[in-house]
């Protein structure tokens, strides 16, 4: 049992202490406003847009619906942790080159969702891609270039294996 006058979160492999926090703060709020990790975006506060997608113990979840103080025993990974050397991951690269980014607000969440999808399924069907990304709303692109980016990553990864 642990109580939470202050608490520690493990984010992208590093421990962060959070003190004087209000109990109702979401993981999204704490990441953005207390830990200096604003890459995860908030657009709905109710798990209906996916912009705040992070991994909690390996599961892709909406950080707006994780009570931050409840995540003290979890491993949290955010978009900032995808590639720490400053370069782009293949998914990020494909989002840029295929035109999947316009305003970019949904982008970090989508990048997290696509990585998660392709980690679990290296050759998803068109419908599997659509279902896997159905929790990430994009208002600018109409999704066409996002699907193109996923297709490109799948093709490049396959080519690399051959």
């Amino acid at each position: 049992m642990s109580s939470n006058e202050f608490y520690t979160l493990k984010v992208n492999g590093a421990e962060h202490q959070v003190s004087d926090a209000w109990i109702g703060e979401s993981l999204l709020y704490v990441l953005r406003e207390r830990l200096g990790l604003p890459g995860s975006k908030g657009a709905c506060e109710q798990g209906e847009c996916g912009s705040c997608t992070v991994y909690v113990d390996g599961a892709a979840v909406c950080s707006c619906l994780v009570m931050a103080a409840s995540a003290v025993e979890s491993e949290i990974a955010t978009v900032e942790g995808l590639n720490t050397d400053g370069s782009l991951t293949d998914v990020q690269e494909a989002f840029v080159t295929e035109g999947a980014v316009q305003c970019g607000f949904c982008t970090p969440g989508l990048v997290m969702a696509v990585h998660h999808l392709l980690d679990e399924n290296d050759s998803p069907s068109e419908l599997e891609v659509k279902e896997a990304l159905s929790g990430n709303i994009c208002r600018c692109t109409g999704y066409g270039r996002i699907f193109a980016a996923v297709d490109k990553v799948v093709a490049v990864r396959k080519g690399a294996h051959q």
Partner: protein
Amino acid sequence: MSVLIPHSILEASEILAQHPAATILNGGTDLMVEVNFNHRRPDSIVLLRNIAELRDWSTDAASGTITIGAGLPYAAIEKGEIARLVPALAQAARTVGSPQIRAAGTMGGNLGTCSPAGDTLPVLSALEAIVHLQSIEGARSVPFADFMVGPKRNSRQPNEVITAVTLPITEQRQGYSKVGVRNAMVISVASACFAIVNDTPRFAMGSVGPTILRAREAEAYLASAASNLNDITEEIAHEFGRIAASESRPIDDHRSTATYRKHAIGVLATRLALKGI
């Protein structure tokens, strides 16, 4: 103000005995929406997510049942072995919110919230699931019909943890459908589960009444009209749908109209009765 994090059901029940006013948190997909929208200001939280035994599931060959931990995320129910054993439940789980919601949300949450639009609840109703609860005073098991007592009301006592749900494994047809005005990630306008258990048809309806409704008259009609439940005529299925619709008690709200919901539930009943024949 604190978050209490037990690691066993026993520990959780001890905490709840001391803090009966505490708010239970598991996946967070209901509670945090209320917190974020300023509708709820919980004082203390008991987190169940780190209790491994709540994520267990097992089958019992003798009784022909499956028992699923209340803390197992929908993502683990919608596919794999559970999906093979209880396909209607898997289908219901697959319609819950988004992939991210299904990775966090649990049946325990669906039961704890007990919304008439709770996606898995028609399955629990049709399959006459048993809900298991635990408190420091002991364990008890409640049929789903006695568990959900009204819209967002259930018979869980403040000191009880919902631990698991037991469902029959049947070799007979079962199906689930949900109507929403979008092709994914949508709250149900009408949902339904049709199942044949021990050669008896069952039909449960969501979002068309204050609780999950069983269409008892329609079930009785079908049992008598169809000599073989795997050989139902279109005509009988339509009458089944008509009766089921007449048993629904929907309302008008911003998501739909009572008239449409009644109509839709009848269509779902007809289609599910015929599906897989």
